[in-house]
């Protein structure tokens, strides 16, 4: 992250002014303060991200009981590993199988399971992704480098006010002896959104 004050000493853009005005106001009203804001920014920049979701996925791969709990109540099973908080009240985990490939979108805005995946990437928030993933998922996935075999059904999950989705990818073959930690390292953010197959 860059220090914009150092690089642009003279002018603030209009949007920077509006952001600063909001911060000043909310601070004056005692609703948020700069320490709170700093802590949230720091957390999403460094501590809350796809590495959390990867741990959930790896646990589900090695522990069948955990997997059952995860698919039955994602929020609760994710909380077992210590993850929760903003945008995480209702997380549903959808499982990829040999017959089904799942992919997640938010057509209206940018809903996303923050506690397990962090903040969404820019493309997830872009109008083309939001529109096309519903209309032509197979073609869009192919453009993104994710080839889903024709015989595999694609299910598109549109995030709503009530529900955020995370994909449980299939465990790649050939790592039977791997530890949970080694397995977690195989899991990418994109696989948990459903735009990549492991």
């Amino acid at each position: 992250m860059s220090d914009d004050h150092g690089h642009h000493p003279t002018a603030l853009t209009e949007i920077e002014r509006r952001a600063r005005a909001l911060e000043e106001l909310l601070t004056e009203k005692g609703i948020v303060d700069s320490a709170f804001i700093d802590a949230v920014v720091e957390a999403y920049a460094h501590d809350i991200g796809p590495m959390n979701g990867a741990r959930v996925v790896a646990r589900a791969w090695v522990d069948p009981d955990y997997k059952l709990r995860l698919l039955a109540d994602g929020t609760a099973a994710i909380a077992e590993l210590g993850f929760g908080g903003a945008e995480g009240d209702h997380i549903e985990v959808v499982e990829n199988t040999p017959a089904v490939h799942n992919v997640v979108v938010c057509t209206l805005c940018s809903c996303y399971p923050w506690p397990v995946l962090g903040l969404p990437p820019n493309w997830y928030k872009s109008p083309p992704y939001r529109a096309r993933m519903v209309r032509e998922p197979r073609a869009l996935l192919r453009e993104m480098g994710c080839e889903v075999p024709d015989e595999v059904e694609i299910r598109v999950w549109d995030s709503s006010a009530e529900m955020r989705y995370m994909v449980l990818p299939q465990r790649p073959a050939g790592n039977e002896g791997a530890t949970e930690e080694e397995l977690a390292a195989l899991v990418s953010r994109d696989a948990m959104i459903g735009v990549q197959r492991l």
Partner: protein
Amino acid sequence: MGGVASLPRDNGELVFDAPWQGRVLAMAVGLVQRLGLSWEDFRARLIDAIADHPDRPYYESWTAALEALVIDLDVAQARDLSERALHIEP
């Protein structure tokens, strides 16, 4: 940014393109938490802000949604916000 052609395949992108983006994100989280609101209160305004200007940069819509929530909650009036913005020092 934004075109399908530029869809990245790795995890290496920055979370925020500029510091103000992180700050408005955190303000929305804080406002919802501290006032005991539902995230839906913010989300509904974000959906409207995006629908009003579909091609506007994402965090500008986020900021507009935050302003709308602040105004609707009577924490401030629109005029307070615009006057404050005019007088912000670099």
